[in-house]
C-alpha cells in the first residue's frame, strides 16, 4: 500500500514533457534554411534551376549546341535566339543550357572523388593517429603549399597527350574531362581531409565514443555508427562549397584552352580566345556565359555558407 502510494507521488512529481514529434534532422535543416537564411535559399534555388537545366538539356535547349547555322552569324538576342548566336551561327542559349550539363557533371564527379579521398584520409588519420597520421599530415602540408591552379595546369600539361583506353576521344566522357575530374578530386580531397581530420579528432574525444569503446564496440562499427554520422556536417558543407569551386576550376581551364574538348559546350570555353575576337561586335557572347558561370558559383557559395551556419557553426571562417 505504502509502496503504491510512493509510486503515485513519484509519478506526480515527474516533470511533464510535452511530447513533440521530433522532425528528422535534414527536414529540420531544410526548414531552417527556408526560415532563417534567405540568401542561402536563393542560392539553393539558383543551384536547383541550373541542375534542372543540366538534366533536361536535351529538351530545354531549342537547338543542338554544336549546330552550325542554327541562325545567322552573330545575331543579336531575339525571340528566335534568346541569347543571340555566335560567330558560327550557333545558338548561345542552347550552348549555355548544355554548358550547365558539363559544369554540373564535372562538379559532382569531382566532389564525389574529393569526398571519398577526404573522408578516407581524415578518418584514418584522425581516428587511428600514430605514424600514419604524422606521415599523411606532412604530405598534406606539402600539398596545401602547392598553388591550386599551378597543380591543375601541371597535371593537365603532363597528361595532355594521353588517351585513356576506356574513354572516348571527344565529348563528355573523354580523357581530358576524366583528367580534370580526378585532379580536382585529389586537389580538393587532400585539402579538405585536414578539416575532416579535425572533426574526427574532436568527435573521438566525446563521451559517447568512450562509452561505446567501454562496451567493446569494434573499429568498423565505431567508425560507421558513431564517428561518421557525427562528422556529416563538415562533409556536406565542404561538398557544397567544393561544387562551386570545381565548376569555377573547370571553367578556368576551359577558358585557358586546357579544359574540356572543344566539341563540348562549356561556359569557360565560350569565353575563351576564339570567342574573344567577336565580343566587340557581339556583347552577348561575353555576357551570358559569364553570368551563367557566376550565378552557378554564387549559388553554391551561398548555399554552402548557409548550410555551414545551420549544420556546424564551429566551421565559420568568415
Amino acid at each position, binding site marked *: 500500500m505504502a509502496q503504491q502510494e510512493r509510486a503515485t507521488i513519484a509519478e506526480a512529481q515527474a516533470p511533464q514533457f510535452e511530447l513533440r514529434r521530433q522532425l528528422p534532422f535534414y527536414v529540420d535543416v531544410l526548414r531552417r534554411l527556408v526560415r532563417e537564411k534567405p540568401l542561402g535559399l536563393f542560392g539553393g534555388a539558383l543551384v536547383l534551376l541550373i541542375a534542372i537545366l543540366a538534366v533536361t538539356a536535351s529538351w530545354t535547349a531549342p537547338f543542338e549546341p554544336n549546330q552550325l547555322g542554327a541562325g545567322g552569324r552573330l545575331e543579336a538576342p531575339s525571340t528566335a535566339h534568346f541569347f543571340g548566336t555566335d560567330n558560327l551561327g550557333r545558338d548561345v542559349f542552347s550552348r549555355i543550357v548544355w554548358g550547365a550539363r558539363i559544369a554540373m557533371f564535372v562538379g559532382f564527379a569531382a566532389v564525389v572523388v574529393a569526398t571519398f579521398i577526404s573522408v578516407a584520409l581524415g578518418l584514418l588519420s584522425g581516428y587511428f593517429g600514430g605514424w600514419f597520421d604524422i606521415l599523411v599530415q606532412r604530405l598534406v602540408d606539402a600539398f596545401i603549399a602547392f598553388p591550386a591552379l599551378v597543380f591543375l595546369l601541371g597535371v593537365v600539361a603532363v597528361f595532355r597527350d594521353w588517351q585513356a583506353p576506356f574513354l572516348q576521344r571527344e565529348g563528355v566522357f573523354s580523357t581530358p574531362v576524366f583528367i580534370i575530374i580526378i585532379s580536382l578530386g585529389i586537389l580538393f580531397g587532400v585539402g579538405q581531409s585536414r578539416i575532416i581530420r579535425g572533426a574526427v579528432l574532436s568527435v573521438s574525444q566525446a563521451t559517447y565514443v568512450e562509452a561505446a569503446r567501454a562496451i567493446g564496440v569494434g573499429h568498423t562499427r565505431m567508425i560507421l555508427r558513431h564517428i561518421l554520422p557525427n562528422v556529416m556536417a563538415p562533409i556536406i558543407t565542404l561538398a557544397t562549397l567544393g561544387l562551386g569551386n570545381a565548376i569555377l576550376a573547370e571553367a578556368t581551364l576551359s577558358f585557358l584552352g586546357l579544359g574540356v574538348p572543344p566539341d563540348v559546350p562549356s561556359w569557360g570555353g565560350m569565353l575563351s580566345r576564339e570567342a574573344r575576337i567577336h565580343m566587340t561586335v557581339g556583347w552577348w557572347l561575353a555576357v551570358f556565359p*559569364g553570368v551563367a558561370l557566376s550565378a552557378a558559383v554564387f549559388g553554391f557559395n551561398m548555399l554552402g555558407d548557409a548550410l555551414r551556419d545551420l549544420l556546424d557553426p564551429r566551421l565559420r571562417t568568415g
Partner: protein
Amino acid sequence: MTEYVIRRLLLAIPTVLLVMFATFMLLRLVPGDLVELMMAENPYATEEDRARIERELGLDKPIPQQFAVYLGKVLRGDFGHSPWTGRSVASELQDRLPVTVEFGFMAILIGLIIALPVGILSAVRQDTLADYAARSFAILALSVPYFFTALLLIVFPSTWWGWSPPLTYKPWSAGPIDHLYYYFWPALLLGVGLAGSVMRMTRTMMLEVLRQDYIRTAWAKGLRERAIITRHALKNALIPVVTIVGLQVGTALGGTIILESIFNIPGVGRYFIGAIFQRDYPSVQGVVLVLAVIVVLVNIVVDLTYGWLDPRIRYG
C-alpha cells in the same frame, strides 16, 4: 625568435623536398615518349635537337640517379633549358618573376586597401544598409571569376567610349607612371577578387573583438571611436586576417596566370601557359617548382608576422 625562424626553415625542408620530388616526377609521368612529343611540337626540330634534349633530360639513367642529378642542378639554380629557345629556364624566370611579383603584390595591396576599411565599416555598422551592401559585394567578388570581369573591362568600354585598358607592356624605363598604370587594371580586378574573403574575415573577427570587455573599458575611458577601432580592436582582429592573406598568395598566383594571358603581361604566368601549349616540359617543371617554393616561403613569413601583431604569441 631566431631559433624559431631557423626551426621553421628546417621544417620547410621536407616540404620543399616533396615539392621538388613532385616536379621531378612531372617529366617522368608524361605518358608516351617525352622527347618524341616535344619533337612533334616543333616541325623545324633537327636530330641534333633530339640528341640535345635527351642528353639534357638525362632520361637514360636510373630514376634515383636522375633525381640526385636534378636536385644537384636545382640547388645550383640550374632549371634546365627550353628546348626551343635554348634559353635557360632560370634566366627566363629571372626576367619574368619580378613582373609577376610586382603584379601580384599590387593586386594584394589593392585587395587590402579595399577589404580592410570596408570590412571594419561593415562590422562597426553591423546590420545597416552599408553592412548589407558590403557583404553582398564580398559575395559577388568571391563568385564572379576574374577572367569574366577582365573580358567585360576589355570589351565594353572599347565599344561604348573607344577606351580600353593598356594591353602593351611598359617597362620601368618607359616611366614609372606608365609602368604602374599598365598594371593597374588587371591588379584592380585581381584585388577585388581577393578582397572578398579578406573582407568577410575582417568583419567576422572585428565583430568578435568589439564584444570584448577591454573594448567596453576603452569606451568607458572616453576614448574616441577612431582610437578604439584602430588601436584596440583592429590589431587584435588581424591575426586570422593575416592567415587568409597568406593563403591568398597561392590564389593570387593563379589569378596572375589567368590575367597575364589576357592582358599580355610578360610574367611567369603567361610563360607557364605558353610552355604548356608548346610542350616545353623543362620550362613547365621549372615554373611549377619556383612558384611552389615561393608559396612555402611566403607562408613562413606570414607565420612570423603573428608575433609582431600579438606579442603574446611566443616563438619557442
